[in-house]
C-alpha cells in the first residue's frame, strides 16, 4: 500500500477535474471536425470528436469506451499527455484565435467516470491457450498485456520494482497525476485477467531462457535505465541526486530530507530537468535554478513547460556546466563554468551555493539487459529496433515498445506501441501457430 502522506500529495492537480456542467459546456464547443486534426495528432488516434460528443450527450460511459478502445492508458494519458504539443495543439480553434478544446480534461472527465466507479468495460477474449511475457510493468507492457488478454491470450507482466505502472507511477509530475491514480488505472486494466509478477527482475531473478520456455512470445517494455551520471568530482556527496531517483522519492516516499534545503540546482535541459525544478519549487524550495549547457532554443524541454517553470519562479543559467560538487561531507555548492557553443569552457569557474542537486542529463540504456537475450537482438545504443507495423524485433520471439524502443517519448507513445505489438504478436500467433 502506498502511504497516504507521501511528499507528492502536497502538490494538488494543476488541471483539476471539470465539473459536469463545465464538461458539458466545453464539450458543446467542439465542432466535430471532419478528419479531425486533433485525432491525427494523437499517437493512439482516439476518436476525439466522438468521445466529446458522447460527453455532451450525457453518455460518459460510451465516451470512456471510445477512449479506452483506442488507448488502454486513456485514464493516465488524460492527465499526463503533453496535450499542448499533441491533440490540443492541433485543435482548429487555435487557428480561430480562440481557446482550443480542453481535450485532456474532457478525456479525464470520461475515464474518471468509469475508473473511479469501477465500471468495467472490457473482458478477456475466448482463451487461445497462448501465453506472452511482458518485461517491465510500465505503460508499454500494460497496453500490450491488456490488448493481448482481450484477444484471448494469457499475459504475464514482470516488474522488478515494488509498484506496477512504471514511470506513470513513480515518474510523472505529481501536479499532473499522483501515484494512486496510476495504480487505480493498473488495477482497472488488470481486472480482465492480466497476471503480475512484482519484484521479479528478468535477466536476474528469471533467466531469459526460462521465459522463452514458458511463453510463446516476449514483449520488451523495460523502459530506460537509471539516471546517467556526469562523472564530475563530488557527485557521490549526499545531496546530489539523479533526477528520476529524486522524483521517485517525492512520489512514493514520505520524507525527502533535502526538501528542507534553501537552494537547489537542476542540471539538464530536458523535460525531466524542468519537471524536477518545478516540483522542487512548488514544494517550497526558495531558490531553484536550472543549469543548461546550451541556450533556451536548444532545450529539448517543451516551451510551455519552461514558461510554466519561469512563471513559478525557477531561474535559469544558460551555457554553463558543473565542474565540481563541493561540500564537507554534504553538498553545499556547485562549481560551474561557462561554455561556448562547442561546449568548451570559457572564463573562470564560479560557485553557486546549493544544498541539493538533481542531475537530469538522461537515463541510461539497457544494453547489458539486452545482451543477455539468447540469440541477441538488434539495437542502437540500447534502443531496440522494431518493425514499424508490428513492433517486432530482429529476434523472432521478441516484440518491443515504449521508451526501450523509441528512446524515450511519452506515455501515449508507449501505449500505442504496446498495443501495436500486441496486435503484431496476435497476428503472428494466428498466422503460423507461433512456431519460430
Amino acid at each position, binding site marked *: 500500500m502506498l502511504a497516504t502522506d507521501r511528499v507528492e500529495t502536497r502538490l494538488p492537480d494543476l488541471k483539476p477535474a471539470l465539473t459536469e456542467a463545465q464538461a458539458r*459546456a466545453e464539450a458543446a464547443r467542439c465542432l466535430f471536425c471532419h478528419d479531425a486534426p486533433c485525432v491525427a495528432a494523437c499517437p493512439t488516434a482516439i476518436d476525439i470528436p466522438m468521445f466529446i460528443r458522447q460527453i455532451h450527450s450525457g453518455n460518459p460511459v460510451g465516451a470512456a469506451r471510445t477512449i479506452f478502445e483506442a488507448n488502454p492508458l486513456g485514464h493516465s494519458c488524460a492527465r499526463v499527455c503533453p496535450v499542448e504539443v499533441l491533440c490540443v495543439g492541433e485543435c482548429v*480553434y*487555435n487557428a480561430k484565435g480562440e481557446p482550443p478544446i480542453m481535450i485532456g480534461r474532457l478525456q479525464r472527465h470520461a475515464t474518471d467516470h468509469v475508473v473511479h466507479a469501477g465500471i468495467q468495460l472490457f473482458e478477456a477474449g475466448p482463451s487461445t491457450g497462448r501465453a506472452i511475457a511482458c518485461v517491465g510493468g510500465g505503460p508499454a507492457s500494460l497496453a500490450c498485456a491488456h490488448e493481448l488478454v482481450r484477444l484471448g491470450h494469457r499475459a504475464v507482466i514482470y516488474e522488478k520494482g515494488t509498484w506496477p505502472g512504471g514511470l506513470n507511477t513513480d515518474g510523472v509530475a505529481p501536479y499532473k497525476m499522483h501515484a494512486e491514480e496510476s495504480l487505480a488505472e493498473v488495477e482497472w486494466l488488470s481486472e480482465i485477467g492480466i497476471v503480475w509478477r512484482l519484484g521479479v527482475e528478468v535477466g536476474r531473478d528469471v533467466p531469459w531462457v526460462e521465459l522463452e520456455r514458458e511463453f510463446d512470445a516476449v514483449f520488451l517494455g523495460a523502459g530506460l535505465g537509471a539516471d546517467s551520471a556526469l562523472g564530475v568530482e563530488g557527485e557521490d556527496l549526499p545531496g546530489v541526486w539523479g533526477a528520476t531517483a529524486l522524483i521517485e522519492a517525492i512520489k512514493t516516499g514520505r520524507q525527502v530530507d533535502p526538501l528542507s534545503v534553501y537552494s537547489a540546482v537542476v542540471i539538464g535541459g530536458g523535460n525531466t530537468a524542468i519537471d524536477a525544478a518545478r516540483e522542487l519549487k512548488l514544494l517550497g524550495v526558495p531558490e531553484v535554478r536550472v543549469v543548461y549547457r546550451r541556450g533556451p532554443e536548444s532545450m529539448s524541454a517543451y516551451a510551455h513547460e519552461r514558461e510554466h517553470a519561469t512563471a513559478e519562479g525557477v531561474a535559469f543559467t544558460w551555457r554553463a556546466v558543473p565542474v565540481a560538487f563541493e561540500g564537507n561531507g554534504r553538498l553545499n555548492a556547485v562549481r560551474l563554468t561557462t561554455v561556448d557553443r562547442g561546449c568548451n569552457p570559457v572564463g573562470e569557474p564560479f560557485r553557486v551555493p546549493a544544498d541539493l542537486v538533481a542531475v537530469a542529463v538522461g537515463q541510461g540504456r539497457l544494453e547489458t539487459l539486452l545482451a543477455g537475450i539468447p540469440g541477441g537482438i538488434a539495437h542502437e545504443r540500447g534502443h531496440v529496433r522494431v518493425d514499424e507495423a508490428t513492433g517486432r524485433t530482429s529476434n523472432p520471439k521478441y516484440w518491443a515498445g515504449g521508451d526501450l524502443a523509441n528512446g524515450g517519448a511519452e506515455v501515449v507513445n508507449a501505449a500505442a506501441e504496446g498495443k501495436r505489438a500486441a496486435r503484431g504478436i496476435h497476428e503472428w500467433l494466428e498466422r503460423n501457430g507461433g512456431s519460430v
Partner: protein
Amino acid sequence: MRGGNPGNGAPRGNGGPRANGGPRPGRPVDLSVECGGIRSPNPFWLASGPPTNTAGQVMRAFDMGWGGAVWKTLGDPITNTASRYGAIDYQGRNVAGFNNIELITDRPLEVNLREIAEVKRRYPGHALVASLMVETRDDWRDIIRRTEDTGCDGFELNFGCPHGMCERGMGSAVGQEPRLLEEITGWAREFASIPVLVKLTPNITDILDPAMAAQRGGAHGVSLINTIKSVIAIDHDTFSPIPSVAGQGTSGGYCGPAVKPIALHMVTRLGKAEEFRLPVSAIGGIHTWEDALDFLLMGASSLQVCTAAMHYGFRIVQEMTRGLEEWMREKGYSRIEEFRGRALPNYEEWGDLDLNYRIVAEIDPVLCIGCQLCYAACEDGAHQCIALPAGTRVPRIKQDECVGCNLCQIVCPVEGCITMVEVERGLPKESWNDRVAAGTAGAGGRH
C-alpha cells in the same frame, strides 16, 4: 441564423448594439406602440403566464421596463400538477425549448381582480390586459363585467391553451373550432366596452382560419402564438414522459427559442393575407431584440414574452429595449411605425422567386481553420461540390458545380469565412409562375 445572400457571412446584428458597445448619441427614439386600441410605452408585454401571476410581479416588471402585461388567465381556479415544466437543452445551452402542462390561474378571482385594479391605479400608462377563459355565455358576461371594473385596458381571450383546459371545452378546443371562436368573440364584444384581443393556438392547419373567425367575431386584434402541443422527452429510467407527475406524463405546450420560426411564419401569414386587417400582438420565442425586430418587421404591433422572462427574470427586457433603440438610431428611425411591416413586401410565395438568380460559395483561405465541416456537409449532405486539395486543410469549392444551397456557409464555424457570391448571368428574373404562364414550366422541376 444565416441566409444565402451575398456577403451575408456574418450573423445578423453586426453593426447593431453589440458591435460598438454602449448606446450612441443621437435623436431620442420613441418605442411606444398601440395594438388594437391598447397603448403602451414600448412594445414589450409580458405574455399571460407565471410571470404575470401577481401584482407584485407585474409591478416589478413595469419598474424594470416592460411596457405591458397580460395577466395570467382568469377563470374558475384550477389545481395544477407537480411538476409542470420540461425543457430541451441544445449544445450546452439550456432551455432551447420549454414545455409546460400548467393551467390558468390557481388564485381566487377576487384576489386577482383586486390586484389588477391596484396595478392599473399605480401604473396608468402601462398596458394591462386581462386574459380570460370561461365556458358558458353567462360565465363570459359575468367575468367580463367584473374584470372591466378593475380599469384594465383590454381583454385577451385565451383560445390557445393546448392542455388541460381543452378537455373542458375551453382553450385550444375553441381555438381549433373557428365557428365557436367567432361566436364567443362575439359574446365578448357584446359584453365588453374595452378592446378585445383573441389569442390563437398554433395547433391548427392554417392560422388564417381562426384569425378570420376572430375578425368576423369583431375582435380588435389577435395575439399569437400560444404554445405548441409537445412531448418534451421520456425519462429512460422510469419510462415516464417529462415532466413527470407521479410517474406519468402528458402532452404539454412548447415555447421558448425553438418555436420562434413557427410563430414568425404565422405572424407573416397574417401579415400577408389581404383579407385579414387586425393588428397582431406577436408571441413565441422572443429572447432578444433581434427576435423582437423580426416580428415587428413582419407587421406585429406589440410583442409578448413569457419563457425569456421565466428563464432570465424581468431584467431581460432591458436588453430588448436597448437593442431595439440602438438599431432604430442606427437606421435613422424615430418611431416603430416607420418600419413596422417593412419586410412583408419581400416575402413572396415560392412560385414568385427568381429561378435565374445564382450564388456560389467562396472560402476565405486566410480565415479558414481547416475543420473541413463544409466538406463533410457538402459531400454527404448536399451536392459533392467541395474538394480537398492535397497539402492543405483548406477545402476548395468547385464553383462551376456549386448549386448555391449555402449549407457549407451554415456549418462553417468561422464568421465570414464562407461567403456566397453572386454569379452574374445576365438573365432577367424568371419565376416558376412566369414559367407556368409561359407554358415552359416543365423545364426544371419544382422540387
